[in-house]
């Protein structure tokens, strides 16, 4: 069994002019498991989304079983025999297992002209499918009553029911216990024996080596390694994944951190999310937080900024404890927060640039009675902030945030916080999706802020930029801090290892 079932040739895709896939080619053979690994942002998800019909490639060809494959939507890809099992499962939790299996095409029977679902038929078919993945739950049970592992099996059974030839699994084990992972693997191996091909995406390199027949390594949207798994070791995979030379430009840091603590976190815990997080952030310091997606970085940022609650521990901002969930109070006391997703959470897309900049500090321009906003003064301040971040736009008052490039949008978000002169910045992925030039300017702004005495918490998936900018780096995995290193000890492989290796522990 070595006939090619899926073949991608020179697939290319860009978002807003930023290339994420460059001439990617891959071959999947019938009855084999292809593991795809790469850093966050290497292009794995984009590639899979193209195969699964979520996105469309800019150029390149995909052939599935000898025919051209260019699905316009996920349902079409599914009909063509590609089942995409996302990390966030695509099940309707309020419906039964059987209903989820047949949601797209219920078998019907007409009784008095009313098209009723053939309940018994879907129940029995579902029962057979569940048996084939060794899942012993009733076909009638609601998905919300199942554990994450059981839900995963339901997705796989659903793929089998649709007679999928290729199953794509994106990080299928992140929410599974080790026993559930074992079970998943034995099922996948059995399916492979039945001639079903799989694409397996995971950060857990040990799992990839254990399960996959072939391995493909992506870095910066390019294929940097490819071959049967015998050609790879854990070490080789890591070095291929991260092996970019540090030729990217970072501004040199203009000042050193002082000994004064601006933010202190003591044994911060929230059950199921964070465990015993503790660190100090000094005045003038840029403290990096590294870790894989889902390691708890964003959750930590949200808790620090008061968007989510925490159960135990303490957060001290400039020596004062913060208790209640209240971003309002934190802003008032000098904390700023740049969200991971500036499009959704950080900007009013249809408002003008200057209104966006002035948003956070609106109250401070409405101090005088009767509490009306002093608009001319506010606009002057917004203009100064825009200049400080070297914002490029045609008009502060007429251009809306929506029409700016990603880099300039991020500058607007930064400018809006500058007006409040915060002492602590929490930046979650501040350079995601912006081009190299704009990245450099964001770094430069960060350096200036630190030089002026702000403490900066810099959360990023890109280890290089953390190494380029930070005074210290914390590594998170599974909601814990797994490592901490100072600038002189920075070691990319060590950071990567700290973020990954947790998976290999019992």
């Amino acid at each position: 069994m070595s006939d090619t079932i899926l073949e991608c040739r020179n697939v290319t895709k860009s978002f807003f002019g930023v290339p994420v896939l460059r001439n990617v080619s891959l071959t999947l053979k019938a009855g084999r498991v292809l593991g795809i690994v790469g850093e966050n942002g290497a292009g794995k998800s984009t590639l899979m989304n193209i195969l699964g019909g979520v996105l469309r490639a800019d150029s390149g060809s995909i052939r599935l079983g000898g025919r051209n494959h260019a699905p316009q939507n996920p349902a079409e890809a599914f009909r063509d025999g590609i089942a995409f099992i996302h990390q966030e499962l695509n099940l309707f939790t309020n419906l039964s297992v059987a209903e989820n299996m047949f949601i797209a095409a219920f078998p019907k029977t007409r009784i008095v002209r009313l098209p009723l679902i053939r309940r018994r038929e879907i129940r029995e078919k579902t029962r057979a499918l569940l048996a084939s993945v060794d899942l012993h739950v009733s076909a009638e049970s609601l998905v919300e009553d199942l554990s994450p592992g059981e839900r995963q099996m339901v997705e796989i059974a659903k793929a089998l029911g649709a007679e999928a030839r290729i199953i794509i699994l994106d990080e299928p084990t992140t929410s599974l216990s080790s026993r559930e992972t074992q079970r998943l693997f034995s099922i996948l191996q059995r399916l492979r024996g039945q001639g079903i091909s799989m694409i397996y995406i995971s950060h857990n390199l040990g799992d990839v080596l254990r399960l996959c027949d072939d391995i493909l390594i992506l870095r910066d949207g390019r294929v940097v390694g490819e071959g049967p798994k015998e050609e790879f070791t854990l070490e080789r995979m890591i070095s291929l994944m991260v092996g970019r030379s540090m030729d990217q430009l970072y501004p040199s840091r203009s000042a050193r951190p002082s000994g004064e603590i601006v933010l202190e976190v003591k044994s911060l815990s929230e059950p199921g999310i964070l465990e015993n997080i503790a660190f100090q952030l000094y005045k003038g310091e840029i403290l990096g937080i590294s870790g894989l997606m889902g390691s708890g970085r964003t959750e930590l940022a949200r808790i620090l900024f008061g968007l989510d609650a925490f159960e135990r521990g303490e957060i001290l901002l400039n020596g004062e404890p913060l208790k209640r969930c209240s971003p309002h109070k934190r802003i008032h006391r000098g904390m700023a927060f740049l969200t991971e997703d500036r499009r959704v959470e950080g900007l009013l897309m249809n408002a003008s640039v200057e209104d966006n900049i002035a948003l956070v500090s609106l109250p401070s321009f409405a101090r005088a009675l009767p509490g009306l906003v002093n608009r001319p003064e506010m606009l002057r301040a917004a203009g100064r902030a825009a200049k400080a971040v070297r914002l490029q736009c045609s008009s502060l008052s007429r251009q809306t945030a929506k029409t700016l490039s990603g880099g300039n949008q991020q500058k607007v978000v930064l400018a809006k916080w500058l007006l409040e002169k915060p002492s602590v910045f929490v930046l979650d992925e501040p350079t995601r999706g912006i081009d190299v030039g704009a990245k450099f300017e964001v770094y430069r702004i960060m350096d200036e802020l630190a030089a002026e005495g702000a403490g900066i918490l810099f959360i990023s998936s890109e280890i290089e930029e953390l190494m380029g900018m930070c005074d210290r780096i914390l590594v998170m995995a599974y909601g814990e801090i797994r490592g901490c290193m100072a600038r002189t000890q920075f070691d990319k492989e060590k950071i990567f290892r700290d973020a990954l290796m947790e998976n290999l522990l019992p």
Partner: protein
Amino acid sequence: MTTRKGNIVLFVLNNAPLILFAAVFGGFATLSPKFLAVENLVNILIQSASIGIVATGMTFVLLTAGIDLSVGSIMFLSAAAAGKLIAGGQPISLAFAVAIAIGVGYGAINAFFITRLKILPFIVTLSTQFAGRGLSLLITQTRAMNLPRLVEVGSSKILGMPAPVWLFGAVVVFAHVVLMKTAFGRHIYAIGNDAEGAKKAGINTTRVVFLVYVVSGLCAAMGGLVYLSRLGLVSPKLGLQREFAAIAAAVLGGTSLFGGRGKVLPGTFLGAALIQTVESGLVFIKASEYVYPLVTSFVIFFAVFVDSLRHVKLQQLKRRRIRVAATG
């Protein structure tokens, strides 16, 4: 995944309608033993038929996480049109058919704005609520119409049960079958659970949402006719603010305003009966007329509060777990 205590809390929140119904019913029964007389119970059913039917249509809408604020005006418009035709000497059957057609058309207009022009259901149905009432007042010239001939229809009995109760029962059972046993019904639940996911799964969500508002319009027209044939009167106040009673009945019955959760049987059926029970009960214990809105609004507030509590609780249980090892 879930703790035992969490499960108990969820069980109570999920079964709040039954518990609430039992409490209210028991309360009135102790205050006035005659409350439990068969005659009174049948009366409650007759009186809840109109709003119960409207609430059944509303349940379809709420299940998709939408809302229909125009049902009160649909009741008025269809009743006014029927009344006008009957007063003009047309047969009752023709008048009723026209009224039903008006309800369906009205719902289709709402659906068009919501699904094709992508305007928020709240805004669309708020606007059509005003438009519909205005049009009805124009038709009736804001005068009340007396149609004693209709009361005979409304109070006619089949096998000892009044006709409105039969209709109420038929609508509820039919709606239940559609929601539980047809692809259309299950797709409604899927959309309420995850609209984006439903689209990805290949469900024609536009069509389903469109039909849901048509169903709501149809039910509202039927509710208007039931009301009309019970009182034999078209007054300018017909259906006024009844959208709140309809939403309340559905929510009291356990339908979530956040979509994807709720049933017509027993849910909405009980909810409508509960609202009527509260009103009848207040009459029974001879409470002041001015107390009615206070008590009713408290019951409604309580139901919505429970719904929101349940939503928060579910969100908590659904929150992504990072530390798998620690939680098993």
